[in-house]
């Protein structure tokens, strides 16, 4: 079986090509060409749903005299983007040896604010203070990008009201809950002139006049007047627009995405080759692949694990973010 997977058709003989058209601290726009749509879509899906990040998963509320309910605040806390630098060395709580959480699988953040003045007080993500041991000084710190340095608004307090709570941030992926998504949005498009007819435009009288051209329309030749439909054509140029919500840099999302695909594959290869010695593929498997010492194979999807979702009814006064207990945690309908 010797053939070069990269050198196939004429169009693909060059191998994949990447061209970046725009990049800054919040987004990267790039074109992937000479690749198949199946791979391009895998990359998109993986960037959307399977890159591990860190988010608040457990909240213990000690004092809450604000007008907002505990679970309401817990939910808001869950959605606060936290810096995911070095999250790869953090364990998933369900893989950790500890009882509930520890410094190897979580980051602790505390919030204590009391309105002592005459005016209403705003409590924002800046007031969440990481405490205890951490992998590095950035992991779990709230992402703050606004010019005032406040971060997202959490709640407001009237004079005399107080909020005191402790948050446990854990590692997870967006397939389990969107709060773990590293990206705010991922744009993905191809074939700006709709030569392949994958889109059926709705129109009043003339679709060309009524639909604005794509931003990438100049990147590809428009179809010649009266050009016959090419039924052999396949999409070959894919335009991504990766926008981060803060946990990772935009190009970090792309490289992490590719890494996640590779870890998936590595895990499967590992499992297949390991089984070769035994009777086909049905030999007993070691459970090692969930927490391989080499780190590279340490990827495991988060569904099915209960470790990440503690019930709020156990701890006195504690409450998780409400989505930690949805009935969906067992099965993933989004696969």
């Amino acid at each position, binding site marked *: 079986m010797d053939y070069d997977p*990269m050198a196939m058709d004429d169009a693909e003989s060059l191998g994949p090509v990447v061209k970046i058209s725009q990049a800054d601290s919040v987004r990267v726009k790039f074109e992937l060409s000479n690749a198949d749509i199946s791979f391009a879509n895998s990359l998109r899906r993986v960037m959307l*749903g399977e890159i591990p990040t860190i988010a608040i998963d457990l909240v213990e509320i000690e004092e809450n005299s604000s007008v907002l309910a505990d679970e309401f605040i817990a939910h808001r806390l869950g959605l606060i983007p936290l810096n995911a630098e070095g999250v790869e060395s953090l364990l998933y709580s369900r893989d950790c040896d500890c009882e509930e959480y520890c410094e190897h699988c979580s980051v602790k953040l505390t919030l204590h604010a009391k309105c002592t003045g005459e005016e209403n007080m705003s409590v924002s993500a800046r007031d969440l203070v990481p405490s205890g041991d951490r992998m590095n000084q950035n992991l779990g710190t709230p992402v703050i990008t606004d010019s005032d340095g406040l971060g997202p608004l959490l709640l407001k307090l009237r004079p005399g009201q107080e909020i005191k709570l402790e948050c446990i941030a854990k590692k997870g992926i967006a397939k389990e809950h969107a709060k773990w998504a590293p990206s705010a949005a991922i744009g993905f498009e191809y074939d700006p002139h709709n030569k392949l007819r994958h889109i059926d435009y709705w129109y009043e009288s003339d679709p060309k006049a009524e639909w604005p051209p794509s931003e990438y329309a100049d990147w590809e030749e428009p179809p010649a007047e009266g050009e016959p439909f090419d039924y052999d054509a396949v999409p070959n140029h894919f335009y991504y627009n990766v926008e981060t919500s803060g946990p990772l840099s935009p190009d970090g999302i792309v490289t992490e995405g590719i890494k996640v695909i590779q870890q998936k*594959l590595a895990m499967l290869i590992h499992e297949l080759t390991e089984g070769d010695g035994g009777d086909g593929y049905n030999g007993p498997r070691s459970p090692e692949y969930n927490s391989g010492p080499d780190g590279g194979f340490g990827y495991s999807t988060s569904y099915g694990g209960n470790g990440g979702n503690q019930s709020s009814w156990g701890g006195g006064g504690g409450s998780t973010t409400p989505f930690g207990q949805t009935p969906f945690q067992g099965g993933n309908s989004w696969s």
Partner: protein
Amino acid sequence: MPSQLKTSGSDDVSMDDAPTSHQPQQDESMMDQDEVEDDEENDGEEEEEEEEEEEVQRVKLLPGSTETAASFEFANEGHTLGNALRYVIMKNPEVEFCAYAIPHPSEAKMNVRIQTYEGTTAIQALEKGLADLQDLCDVVNDKFLEARQKFQEQNGVTA
């Protein structure tokens, strides 16, 4: 594992023996044991040894597979891997047919069917497909880093 009671639970069960809800369950478990021979021995062991492991085996060879034509079941995988893997395996000139399916959206399972020409096996083709897809990822990653480097140089950005 009791494999003895096959006869009593066969096709023509009288309906008064047990509530109807009971019967298909019985039948199914019997059939499993019969058909998936090579699964049987290991399943038994696994259940005993690794009670805590919820997911022990990620890839399963489905029954009815031969050397050159096999179906694999991947646990906890979906379109993300399925479609790309299908594409890469299909690129192999020794592969006659490859397709993937997700039999039911609420089950986290993905099936891949591979049929090869003589000279290679479906298992080899799957392994090669996985390795090739990994190479493809490597190339795209390198190209992306290269493009980022170039972009940063052109725009005078550091870091």
